């Protein structure tokens, strides 16, 4: 990977250069400020960076602002950003992930930890490249049958990348965020999920690109519905969106589901043939994250996921029962 590391502390840059040299499989470029980093990014346009390492606290332009600027560039919407910082307070963690960070490493760090994180990012880039190839294969006019090829089509369970939706992060970043949260206080934090109803039918009827657009539209509606609260959300695949909130807010899931569905009904969604889509969501239970260790927090996220999935299935069952029960005048 070609990595750009930005830190105002020359010792950190020396340490990173040394660690990367010892690891021996990456190329590191360093910058001492956000402005310097942006100059390097513009100058390297033809040979873009594969990964960024940003310090948070820097004079003039901090790492959060730098991440936002990088994410605003089309070619770096997906590029992993690893926050490398001594700031371990929750507000900094939240700000880092909200601005688009993929992972977060607390200083001081050891070479083994940094190497392991870089390996995870390398794996993420490889996985993402395969998914991007699938979408392009499905969209390509010279591959009209690509969407029917099970090897190249986006699978129902694939966590698709979604762009330009407020407070939405990719699923690996959400997992990293939760791991960081689990190290501190989770008082007042909770998780819940939404499941798109009849997702298998939508998936089976659509091309990969159409399905990807549908998921992006639903993500935008959910994000807008939660806009007055502090939250992070992520698409976990299979039509399920995981949300993590804090500050003691315990949402009324019935009311929230109605708000999302009302908004979906007002958002006219169509497939490529001009057919209007009837898209609605079901909401699962709220699961509190208080006093949970990392594994328990991940279990809580799974519980929220399963709860939304079950709510969607229960809704379908109730609709079927409605037609099966004999109607009396």
């Amino acid at each position, binding site marked *: 990977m070609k990595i750009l590391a930005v830190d105002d502390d020359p010792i950190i840059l020396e340490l990173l250069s040394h660690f990367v040299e*010892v690891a021996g499989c990456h190329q590191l470029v360093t910058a001492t400020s956000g402005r310097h980093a942006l100059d390097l990014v513009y100058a390297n346009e033809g040979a873009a960076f594969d990964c960024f390492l940003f310090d948070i606290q820097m004079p003039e332009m901090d790492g959060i602002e730098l991440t936002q600027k990088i994410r605003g560039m089309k070619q770096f919407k997906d590029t992993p950003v690893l926050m490398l910082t001594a700031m371990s307070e929750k507000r900094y963690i939240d700000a880092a992930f909200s601005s688009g960070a993929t992972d977060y490493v607390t200083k001081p760090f050891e070479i083994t930890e940094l190497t392991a994180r870089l390996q995870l990012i390398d794996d993420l880039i490889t996985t993402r490249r395969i998914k991007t190839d699938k979408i392009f294969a499905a969209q390509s006019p010279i591959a009209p049958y690509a969407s029917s090829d099970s090897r190249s089509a986006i699978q129902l369970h694939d966590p698709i990348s979604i762009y330009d939706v407020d407070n939405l992060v990719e699923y690996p970043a959400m997992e990293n965020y939760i791991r960081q949260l689990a190290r501190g206080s989770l008082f007042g934090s909770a998780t819940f999920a939404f499941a798109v109803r009849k997702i298998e039918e939508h998936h089976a009827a659509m091309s990969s690109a159409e399905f990807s657009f549908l998921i992006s539209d639903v993500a935008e509606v959910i994000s807008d519905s939660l806009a007055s609260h502090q939250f992070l959300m992520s698409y976990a695949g299979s039509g399920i969106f995981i949300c993590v909130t804090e500050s003691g807010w315990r949402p009324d899931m019935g009311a929230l589901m109605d708000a999302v569905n009302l908004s979906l009904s007002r958002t006219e969604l169509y497939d490529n043939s001009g057919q209007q889509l009837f898209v609605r969501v079901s909401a699962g239970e709220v699961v509190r994250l208080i006093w949970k260790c990392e594994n328990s927090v991940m279990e809580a996220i799974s519980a929220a996921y399963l709860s939304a999935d079950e709510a969607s299935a229960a809704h379908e069952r109730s609709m079927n029962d409605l037609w099966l029960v004999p109607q009396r005048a």
Partner: protein
Amino acid sequence: MSMVSQELSGLDRIRTRFLHLLKERQANVAQHAMLAWESDDAATKRSNFQEAQMTLHQIAGTAGSLGFGDLGQTARECEDLIITYLDGPAFADNVLLNEIFTNLDAFVSKSQNLISHPS
């Protein structure tokens, strides 16, 4: 050269540079601590603490990776106390101020020991 020896020789070089810089950084923290101590003006106190915090933040971020964990921990404690002060009301209570200066004093002493006896 093996990976371990390569890592060690590289770290030695960075450690030497860290200690060289520490002399300058320790003087910077001590100077701003002194100015904050002497000033009765809340704005002057805050700006000096902010300057000291920036330097402490850098030390806290690297000292542990270079084998100076104790110094890094002391720098971190000073930084956390200063952040508490800066996030609080304009006129903090004397207990917090005393705690900050006691910790800054410990930081300056530990830095001095490392600079004087680097091995």
